[in-house]
């Protein structure tokens, strides 16, 4: 029965939320650097999905959501600077308990976060979607609506910039 797969059905809508809410929120977070704003926009995209639930097929829900979110994001005020920060899974297997080492690790993380935040928006997106959300480059190409080679280019440009940034910092220390 075609009705079983309708997004207008509460259980289906909820299932879509459970699988897409976090990836969508992360995607928006990389764009704006604001967790609350990202969650807000994510929820608005889901409302749009609900309003159009009769017209959108279950399999197309994800691309509908991301497209709607992108459009809504373009309509918001952007801050000059995006500042991203991330949580780190705690390594209980850490052998070194030296406070100096812990501090250096923390400093490195902060510097890397800043470098990543300073990347041009679409390079930053590619890098984070690949490393943190584990998307393949092809999936990212579909999401950004560009070619696979364009995505590759953004990735190595991003990696190159990060390497250069951290390289400079290392020499400065000496």
């Amino acid at each position: 029965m075609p009705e079983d797969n309708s997004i207008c059905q509460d259980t289906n809508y909820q299932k879509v939320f459970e699988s897409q809410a976090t990836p969508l929120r992360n995607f928006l977070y990389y764009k704006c650097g604001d967790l609350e704003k990202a969650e807000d926009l994510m929820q608005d995209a889901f409302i749009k999905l609900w309003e159009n639930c009769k017209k959108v097929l279950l399999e197309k829900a994800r691309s509908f959501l991301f497209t709607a979110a992108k459009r809504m994001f373009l309509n918001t005020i952007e801050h000059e600077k995006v500042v991203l920060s991330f949580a780190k899974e705690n390594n209980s297997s850490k052998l070194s308990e030296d406070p100096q080492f812990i501090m250096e690790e923390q400093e490195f993380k902060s510097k890397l976060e800043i470098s990543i935040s300073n990347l041009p928006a679409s390079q930053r997106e590619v890098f984070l979607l690949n490393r943190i959300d584990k998307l393949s480059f092809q999936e990212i190409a579909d999401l950004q609506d560009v070619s696979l080679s364009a995505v590759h280019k953004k990735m190595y440009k991003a990696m190159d910039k990060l390497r250069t940034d951290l390289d400079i910092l290392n020499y400065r220390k000496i």
Partner: protein
Amino acid sequence: MEDINNDNELLIRWINGELSEEELAAFQKTEDYKIYNTIINEVDQWQVRPLNLENSFDELNAKKNKKEESKAISWYNQPMVRWAAVFAFIATAIVYFVAKSQETTVYKTTIGESKEVILPDNSKVFLRPESSIAFKRNNWGKQKRELLQTGTVYYDVKKGLPFEVNFGENKVDVLGTTFEITNNQDYTSVICYSGRVRVTTNNSAFELKEKEALQITPELYEYTVANDWSLNLIRFEKAPLKSVFDSIEKTFNVKISANSTILERKFTGAYSDTSLDQALKMICVPMNITFKVDGRNVTLK
């Protein structure tokens, strides 16, 4: 030119895990490999602050229902009802606007909670645990941007009208900078991370430039910092251990007991808010103090 293209292609293939054993071995010998590997290893451990799906879904439903309700009031469009509504509206509006002009907006965090807030002018503030900011929404941005704070708050202020923060009997004036103010019972300080900040205390005024800082309590003196602001590191400069441990209590929701000789000692350094154990080590090891954690209680010697 061709070399660069090959290098770039190699990098992508390495990331995808597509290199042959020989290619990998050759790559690992290069200078750049070390840095690329360090970056990837680090970032692969990161995640964005987890989303609480249940709460978010509940919020989503609330928003959805609100939207659906506002569409259903078509019967208000009847002419008679409309006029009655208009008069009622004007009356309440007057009361509402009078009340609203006194309205104070408050943001605060509890023990163990941190929060990032965007102000009406798009400046950003980050509240550490047990901190708060308050401002009059109606006055904001008329001639200046003014607010009050307690606890420890980091500011990223957009250039614009004069921006003033009041804390205790002190205040800070800025124009487009980043800085952090700590205002607790026994430890008050201002650290300027970029731009310029003007601090006014009881008797004197100081102008801080990038990486300059001022401690106000317990002792008034200026110093400099070497590092950028960090989300996860809470720093102190010659702070009484009592305030350092107060801060740890607020961050992790624990109770710390120690004798007064320990509490009076001064500490310069930082602790990480990622785990209680790490935090205690970072403070106690350099100070030669031993600690014991028992559930929510910590004892120091």
